[in-house]
Each structure stands twice: as C-alpha cells, then as structure tokens.
C-alpha cells in the first residue's frame, strides 16, 4: 500500500494521552507538594515537595491494619479462586466438555449482578442464618471470589485451551505419574502465565474493592482512604497514589511475563466494579 502522511492520528494520541497523564501529575503534586493551589506558579513549582503527608498517614494507627487486611483478603481470594477454578476448568476440558457452555455462562452472571446488588442480596440472604458472612472480615472472601469469577474463568479457560491437554495428561500418566504429580509437575508449569494473570488481576481487584467492604463496614484499604480523606487529605492522596503505583507495577510485571510466554493469553477484558 502506498505511504500516506499521517494527519489526524497524532493529535488524537496526544490529546487522549494528555487526558490520561494530567490527573496522575495532579495527584502526585497534591500528595507531595505543600504549596496551596492559589500560590502555585512558575516560582513555586519546585518548592516544598515532601513526603511527610504520606509518611504521617502510613504511620497512622489505622493504616497498617487496613492495608494488611486488604493484602490478606487479596491473598486468600487468589487462593480460593485458584482452588475452585483450576480443577473445575481442567475437568471441563478433559472430560466434561458438554458442561463447558453452562459453566462459562454461569461465570458471566457476575457481570449481571453488580457488586452493590451482590452485597445487598448476600446480606439479605445470610444476615440471619449465617451472620459470619456479614460480620467477619473474611466473610468478604466469597463475595470477592464471585467478583473475580468472570475474568478468572476466562483466563484459565484460554490457558487450558492453548495446551494439548490430552497428550500432556496421557504422557504424564503413562509414565506412571499420579494425578497429583501430573497436576503439580506438568499442568501447573504449563499454565503458569494463565495462573499468574488470574492471581494478579484478582489481587488488584481486592486491593481496590470499595462497594462491598464499605457497605459491610469493613476497614479495608479503600474504605480507610475515604475515611482519611477528611482528616488528612494529602496523606490519603499519597496512599491512593501508592496503590496506583503498586497496581501499575503489578501489571507491568504481568505484561513482561505474558510477552515471554509462547502461549500468551489474549488481552483480557474485565468490568471495573
């Protein structure tokens, strides 16, 4: 095809790019510069940058428990998602192919029930019978697993589909490996990318989840940030920035891993809760 000169493409990229970068810059400034907005100008742009606000918040009594709770919930959610889905998707690909459609549609149902409706329904259904789900911190885990279900199912499904599963399992089993060994030494190493993608996404979702934990009055990192915003706006902004940086790094690492892997799964699409 003959070469055209690009005309409209660069302006689009630049304008949209600016729309994405400006909020991040503004956030960084808000979190780290102690100059009132009305005094900000050419002369003051470089003065009084500090991370004291962030430090104050991080050393706050309530920050650490909230942060640790979110991390723990993230780890437990990842474990439950994998424990629930890995055997299921394996079985669906290996034997129960007739059930694949049903299982996939079921996994997508979480897109139809938004987090706010999910938490309302769960508290309506179990508040009187199984109060643990509503009252305990770890009662959040089942709800978070449901939130992760659509993308987790799809990522693992794509991962399994990329393998020549029957050959792998047959080879491993005919060499005398037990099912457990097959799972640990053959399947998991081959599915590493899909497993990591699922884990990272699920962890990121839990770290940022607000609707459910706020309605159930749990002190997770996002609910803490909203609460701290009133007391120490700069520190809260700093924590939010930190969370953003953490998420971005997580995704960059993920991108690297996916690029290296030969059976890289397709770009996953997920709905933000």
């Amino acid at each position, binding site marked *: 095809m003959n070469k055209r000169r690009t005309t409209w493409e660069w302006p689009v990229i630049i304008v949209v790019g600016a*729309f994405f970068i400006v*909020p991040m810059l503004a956030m960084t400034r808000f979190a780290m510069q102690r100059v009132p907005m009305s005094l900000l100008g050419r002369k003051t742009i470089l003065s009084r940058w500090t991370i004291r606000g962030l430090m104050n918040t991080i050393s706050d009594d309530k920050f650490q428990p909230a942060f640790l709770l979110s991390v723990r919930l993230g780890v437990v959610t990842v474990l439950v998602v994998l424990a629930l889905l890995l055997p299921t998707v394996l079985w669906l690909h290996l034997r129960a192919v007739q059930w694949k459609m049903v299982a996939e549609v079921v996994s997508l149902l979480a897109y139809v029930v938004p987090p706010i409706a999910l938490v*309302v*329904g769960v508290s309506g259904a179990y508040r009187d019978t199984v109060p643990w789900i509503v009252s305990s911190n770890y009662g959040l885990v089942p709800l978070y697993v449901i939130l992760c279900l659509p993308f987790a199912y799809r990522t693992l499904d794509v991962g399994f589909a990329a393998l020549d599963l029957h050959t792998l399992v*047959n080879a491993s089993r005919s060499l005398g490996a037990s099912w457990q060994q097959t799972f640990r030494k053959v399947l998991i190493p081959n599915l590493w990318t899909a497993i990591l993608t699922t884990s990272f996404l699920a962890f990121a979702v839990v770290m940022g989840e607000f609707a459910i934990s706020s309605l159930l009055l749990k002190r997770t990192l*996002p609910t803490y940030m909203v609460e701290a*915003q009133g007391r120490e706006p700069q520190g809260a902004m700093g924590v939010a920035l930190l969370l953003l940086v953490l998420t971005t790094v997580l995704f960059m690492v993920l991108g690297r891993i996916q690029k290296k892997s030969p059976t890289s799964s397709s770009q996953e699409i997920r709905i*933000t809760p």
Partner: protein
Amino acid sequence: MSELDFPRLVSPDLRENVTGGPAGSRASSTSGHWSPSLVLPLVPYFLFVGLFLAMPTVVLFTKAFRPVTGSTTSAMVEAMSTSNRSSFIFSLKLSLYSAILGALIGFLFALAATRIERPRRLRNLVTGFSGVAANLGGIPLAFAFIASLGAQGLFTRILYHNGLDLYGNGFKIYDFWGIVVVYLYFQIPLMLLVMLPAIDGLRPTWREAAINIGASPFQYWRRVGLPILTPSLLGGTLLLFANAFSAYATAYALSSGGSRLVPVQIRFYLQGNTITGKGNLGYALAAWMVLILLFVMTGYLLLRRRAERWRTA
C-alpha cells in the same frame, strides 16, 4: 483417582467426544450429561456460585417484590413511581453518555494507535497502559480527578489562568458531566481493548480489493470497514454502558456519598431501613439494576458472537 481410569483417557471414542464429533459408544448423550462420575468434580464450582451468587439474587428478588411497610403495592412498582425514577434516569443517562463518548473516543484512539507505524513501541505502550487504566477505578481514580478537576484542582487552575472559569460556569466534579469525564478514564481504554482485535481483523486484502475496483478510502470505510466493525462498536458500547451503570466507588468518593446515582441511593435506603421501613425499596432498586444489566449484557454477548463471524483465520 485410581489407575483404572487411565485406559479411558486414551480410548479414541473419548477423543471424539472432546473434539465435538459424534458421541462415542461410552455413553449416550443424555446419561453422559448427568453421569455422577462426570458431574461430581463440577459440584464445588456450581455449589459456590449457587450459594454466593444465585441464592442472594433470588433473595434479592423475593424481597424486592414484597411491599414497603405501610403500603400494598410491591416495592418493585414503588421503586419506579417515586423520586427514585429520577435516580434511574440520572444513572441511565450518565451511563449512556459516558458509553457513547467513551466508545467514540476509544475507537478513534484505537484506530490512531494501529495506524501509526513509526515508533513501533507506541502501540505496545498504548495497549499496556490501557490494560492498567481499564482496570482502574474506584477510590484512587476519584482522588486523581479531585486533584486535577476539583474546585482546587491543578487543571481547573490552569484553565482559570487561561480565561476559562469551569466552576464559575457551573461545572462540578461530582455532577453529571464531572462524573462522565471521570468515567471516561476507564471507558476509553476498555473500548480500545475491545476494538483492537476487531481492527486487526480487518484484512489488508479487503482494502486492496476495494481500492482496486476504484473505491476511495472513504468509500472503503463506508461500505466495507465500518459495516464489519459495527457489531464490535455496538457491543463495545453496551459493555461500556454496563460498566458505567454498575460502577459505584468512584461516584461515591467524588460526591462524598451524596450522589443521585442508583447504587448510592440503594445504600441510603438500606442504612436507614430500620427507621423508615423502606428496606425493601433498596432491594427493589438493586433488582431493577440486575434486570437492566441482564438486558444489556445479553445484547453484548449476542453482538460479540456476531462480531466474531469475520474473525476466522
């Protein structure tokens, strides 16, 4: 699992089952669906979804159809007849605007990113960034926009010094257009991720064929490119709509809990339910949300299937 299972794995009739061929001799199609050894490993998954997704949804709907204290009509009806209707209109309009704007800008962005060839890394950068931004949302996003477009925001200030007084003209970050702009931050990248595979699916040969028989680039897009992309575009718009409609955290943090959006209203009714006796109204609003999302997501899935028709290699 015992070693006895092994011979079954290699039997050719199972292979046939797997590849979607005619059902093998092992089982007829009906008993094959429900035989215990087949279904048993799937029980945990379906049980989990049943307990924590299906059951809550059923309870949600039963409570939603009960009347509010002191009334005889079902809460479902009441949720649509009072001031809540304006909440729904607000939420639907907001989702629609952010979906259409996000879809248009996201499509242009995706198109631009695929057409620029010179720095090869640009496309990777854009996709990588979109993966992050589409998953962003919630509290940090709201904070970032308060810092840039809030009353004391950096960008607000820059515009003010250049003669555009946003807040003097009635703009508020927690009002309709403010929320639309903030939502675009995750809507545009999501649309890009939906559209990139579709745009990549447009084969160069189609374009060359069109040009060879005398079509202008405009005619190519009008008659070939856009018709093929239409299902993806519409499907993407529906996905964005659902995405905006179910979002909660960002709007909540922007408005400090005072937004008119439906999810924020649900919280209001459920927290006050012991005093006002209007708890069922909260369930009804949530039930209406589920119905609307069911409708939208069904449309999305149908369009996605239609869009994949052209993508066979």
